[in-house]
């Protein structure tokens, strides 16, 4: 994950950018696990996207409030604790009010905490990424978080819709191989991903 967020990510309000040019799933290749695992239907995709967007927005808002009080060394930990709190809230809410969806999304709800999208879009400190690359000094605004969440939500709904419609004709789309297949085909259709590394990194 070598997202290169830099000068072109101005803090101005550009939610549309996150939907197309910098779609988190199709262009930035962020949050692929839920994009595969929680999209067997459009409804599941929507729920997953909504939960993620909720956590993203809330974490972003809360963290930016307390950011100045947090020493840099524990920044990442505090950030994750906040995210985990919101994830727990989302988890409980879904469990109580939409148990069938909660069951369908399964483990992907708690895993929102470690979703790359949250770490990048929520403005986690650079040390969040212990290796794969760093989001750098990118500090997203609330608008960015909103756009990103929306982009993610729409992507998941799209994938879910494709799989749901596809599985009516070719049941493989509803199964794990179909998830990979759908995302692979959609990524190919979306064109070259923005964070460059659309090819093996280890050219020896």
């Amino acid at each position: 994950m070598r997202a290169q967020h830099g000068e072109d990510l101005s803090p101005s309000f550009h939610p549309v950018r996150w939907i197309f040019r910098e779609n988190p799933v199709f262009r930035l290749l962020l949050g692929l696990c839920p994009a595969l695992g929680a999209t067997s239907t459009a409804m599941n995709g929507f729920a997953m996207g909504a939960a993620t967007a909720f956590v993203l927005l809330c974490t972003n808002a809360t963290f930016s409030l307390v950011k100045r009080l947090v020493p840099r060394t524990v920044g990442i930990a505090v950030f994750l604790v906040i995210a985990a709190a919101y994830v727990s809230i989302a988890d409980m809410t879904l469990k109580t009010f939409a148990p069938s969806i909660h069951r369908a999304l399964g483990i992907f709800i708690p895993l929102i905490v470690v979703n790359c999208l949250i770490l990048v879009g929520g403005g986690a400190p650079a040390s969040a990424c212990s290796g794969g690359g760093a989001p750098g000094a990118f500090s997203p605004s609330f608008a960015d978080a909103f756009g990103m969440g929306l982009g993610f939500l729409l992507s998941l709904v799209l994938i879910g819709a494709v799989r749901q419609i596809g599985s009516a004709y070719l049941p493989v789309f509803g199964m794990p191989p179909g998830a990979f297949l759908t995302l692979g085909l959609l990524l190919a259709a979306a064109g070259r991903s923005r964070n460059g590394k659309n090819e093996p990194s280890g050219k020896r």
Partner: protein
Amino acid sequence: MFSVFLSAIFVNNLLLRQFLGVCPGTMLCGGVRKAIASGGVIFCIMMCNSTASWLFDRYVLLPLNAEHLQILFSVLILLTTTWSVEVLAAKLLPSVYAGEHFRLSYGTHCAVLGVALLNLRKGYGFAEMLVHSSGAAIGFSLALLLLAGIMERLRFAPGSERLKGMPQALVAAAVLSAVFHFVVL
């Protein structure tokens, strides 16, 4: 026990059947050698983290009736274990640690946390937890290795740039996922 192990490797393979740890860093990990190295590291971290999470859940959270804090503490334990394994590795095996192989991509965190949570959700006992975690780690590394072999070969494939990289890796993963679906010994 044996079937838990086997199904953790194949039918319930983390990467290919449960979609945990899917990201460019794992799908295109950059060569077979690197896949082998990271497979080993992932195995260590998964085992440590699963054990720690299980113990904490069983002996702290359950007695306190605080299961709603499971997610929070799982994340904290994940942070602690990855951090301590790194520190330990840097101390004990500086040469290995210095190599780029040691650095894990994002996706693996998702997989490591996923295994720990699966262990708790399925209510495994200690032995089952160990067997399941090791099976999951082996399965994850196996998937990583197979994909690395395929993608290493496809490095120089002709054809549209659109297809290269992640799209091809995902479709290859789709086929492997289908294969693992059937591997029920």
